[in-house]
């Protein structure tokens, strides 16, 4: 089976803390590799505010994995991710073969498209996630 280019964005529980999140990210990477995937870059976005309360959490660690694997392996990877209870959520997307790799910290790194895009709080968010009190 031909392998495809995928990326998976994983949300890890905030209670893990920085080291715990790193460790789990490492485990996810292992998981992908065990399924025959070839992991490209792994991006850690760190602890970010969630746009809404999810699993009673307001923040989560975001980790992005870029890799190649077969579609079958992807299913297995996703099945295993669902079993990890410290993984709040994830989304896997197939990338075009010629798509450029995600630039570091895409949220901050994208070309400024409005003036406000410029300011520093980039990592945090842009005010859309005002929580309901």
């Amino acid at each position, binding site marked *: 089976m031909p392998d495809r280019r995928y990326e998976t*964005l994983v*949300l890890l529980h905030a209670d893990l803390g920085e080291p715990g999140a790193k460790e789990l990210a490492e485990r996810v990477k292992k998981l992908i590799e065990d399924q025959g995937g070839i992991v490209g870059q792994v991006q850690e976005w760190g602890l970010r505010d*969630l*746009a*809404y309360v*999810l699993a009673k959490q307001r923040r*989560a660690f*975001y980790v*992005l994995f870029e890799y190649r694997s077969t579609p079958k392996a992807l299913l297995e990877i996703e099945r295993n991710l669902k079993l990890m209870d410290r993984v709040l*959520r*994830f*989304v896997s*997307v197939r990338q075009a073969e010629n798509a450029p790799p*995600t630039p570091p910290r*895409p*949220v901050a790194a*994208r*070309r400024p*498209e*409005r003036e406000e*895009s410029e300011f520093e709080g*980039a990592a945090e*968010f*842009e005010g*859309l*996630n*005002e*929580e*309901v*009190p």
Partner: protein
Amino acid sequence: MAERERGERRGKAEGRGFRRRGMGRRKVCRFCADKSMLIDYKDARVLGTFLSERGKILPSRITGNCARHQRHLTLAIKRARTVALLPFSAAYP
């Protein structure tokens, strides 16, 4: 290009009368105008500009996006929502 033509045709669906009578200017799809602007579900910053205050996806009627890019945008926003990069609904305005 294909997008351009589609944009042209959309003028009719603009709702504001059949032929544009001089007033108002046609909105141009921002993604067609700027090819380097990619639609990426991870880019909450760009996607957020296509949401209403309430967190709803703005219709292309308002944003001027072409059908093709509106489609891609919608998908990206929905992906971003599942990973809490964007809200499904925001606090009351």
